[in-house]
């Protein structure tokens, strides 16, 4: 069974630290190696990307095609799960990682049970040939139920209708929505989708916005910046951004460098 505390927003104590595509700076993104590395480096949560395959399974990969991470330029939606599984998703990162597979969602859920929270970013683009929020919701719910990971998963939806469908089919499932830019009316937009979490831009993160969301029981997730827009590159940026996001009340800080983010959170401001 699962011994993880159910996610609640606002989070108590310090923000949760989420590893972007696993520890993508240590091992090839969105592979079990990157997820293992994220755990070793203390991640509270792992952010991963989920794409439907041609035969209706969910593969863990960020891009629409497998070109960048496997060298094979095909769309995930055109491949069967066996074809996806036959590819090497590790060699591009380094010879030590040759043979890493593109994981299936259920495999990652099984691996993660009782160990770490998961933020599943569903790449459910309306342009997909077999776009259906209802069917994608069903597959996600079944996977979480079968692997007994419902309590540790939050499904992140760019497509807010998927969020609403997930909540309709399974009120227990936690969903977040993604918002770009500075949209205004964030609370109402989140409520309409049944979301308990909003993923938004660091540049538009303010204490006022986060306080408004928290008053409505909604959390704020954003990414610690490696470089600030309009500013020169500076290795201290990530630490400064991490502390700023903590101080304004962010619930989940997504990072590309777990060690630097934890060091910033533990050090004095």
């Amino acid at each position, binding site marked *: 069974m699962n011994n993880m505390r159910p996610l609640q927003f606002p989070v108590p104590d310090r923000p949760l630290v989420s590893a972007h595509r696993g520890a993508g700076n240590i091992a090839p993104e969105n592979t079990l190696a990157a997820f293992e590395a994220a755990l070793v480096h203390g991640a509270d949560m792992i952010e991963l990307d989920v794409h439907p395959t041609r035969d209706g399974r969910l593969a863990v990969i960020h891009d629409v095609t497998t070109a960048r991470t496997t060298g094979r330029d095909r769309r995930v939606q055109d491949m069967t799960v066996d074809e996806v599984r036959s590819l090497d998703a590790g060699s591009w990162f380094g010879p030590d990682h040759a043979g890493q597979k593109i994981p299936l969602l259920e495999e990652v859920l099984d691996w993660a049970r009782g160990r770490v929270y998961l933020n599943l970013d569903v790449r459910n*683009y*309306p*342009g997909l040939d077999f776009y259906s929020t209802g069917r994608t919701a069903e597959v996600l719910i079944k996977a979480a139920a079968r692997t007994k990971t419902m309590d540790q998963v939050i499904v992140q939806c*760019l*497509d*807010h*209708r998927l969020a*609403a469908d997930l909540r309709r089919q399974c009120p227990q499932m936690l969903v977040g*929505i*993604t*918002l*770009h*830019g*500075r*949209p*205004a*009316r964030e609370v*109402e*937009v989140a409520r*309409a*989708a049944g979301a308990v979490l909003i993923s938004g*831009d660091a*540049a*538009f993160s303010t204490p006022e916005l986060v306080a408004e969301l928290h008053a409505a029981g909604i959390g704020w997730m954003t990414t610690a910046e490696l470089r*600030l*827009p*309009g*500013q*020169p590159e500076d290795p201290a940026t990530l630490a400064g951004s991490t502390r700023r996001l903590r101080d304004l009340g962010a619930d989940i800080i997504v990072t590309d460098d777990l060690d630097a983010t934890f060091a910033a959170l533990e050090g004095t401001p």
Partner: protein
Amino acid sequence: MFNFRDFTSTGRPPLLVAHRGDQHGAPENTFAAFEQAAALGTAIIELDVQVSRDGVPVVIHDDTLDRTTSGTGPVRERTWLELRQFDAGAWYGEGFAGERVPSLAEVLDWASERPVGLLIELKTSPVFDSRSAEQLAAVLEGRPGGNIVLYSSDHVLMGQLSRSLPGIATGLVINERTPWQHRMLADAGAALLSQSVWVLTEEAVTEAHAHGVLVCSEARYPSDIDMLTAWGVDLIVSTRIPLADLAPALEETRQGI
């Protein structure tokens, strides 16, 4: 002169928009790229605006100078006089050496004498603060403005600008699929929806049109143009297909403007 207010999408092909000018034939966001786009018959040119250190709205995409000019470092840390010194063409090709970073005012003057409309994206990195927004409004005040649309993913900023510049059409970038799309547009007084081809649906287009809102999206492949045309999208930004390859379509889309 092109006027967005006279433009309705019903029963006509979409307008093809030149991304940063003729980005594939000249250095992006320079007069060379704008001239070339106009020469190819483009009705609408898309461009990006940020504000210099001393408050001049300038036309450049990245928040740093490094990729597209001879300068280095953040755009925001340079004054307009400093920005003028940099070469914005040589990086693209020797024949374009001497191109400069244009100011928005210069491009507005240029477009006012030609049959082109401008889609002007206000970049959000760095965010337009209230001072930058006032400086932008000062450049636009008193201009006829019928041939331009200002748009951005900062909906709060666009709401402010649509109130302070009632003569100029505004648009929103909404890059998520949300049932709140129309309310976002209505709140900001927006006349244009810009949505990524990844997120856009025919339903979203129909909904925007029902409220008199024009829809803009981008084509990466020729098949995208067919799909977006079938959905009734009004403006299609050609991001990856060179404008020169679209000459017949450009001619067709200009009919009836």
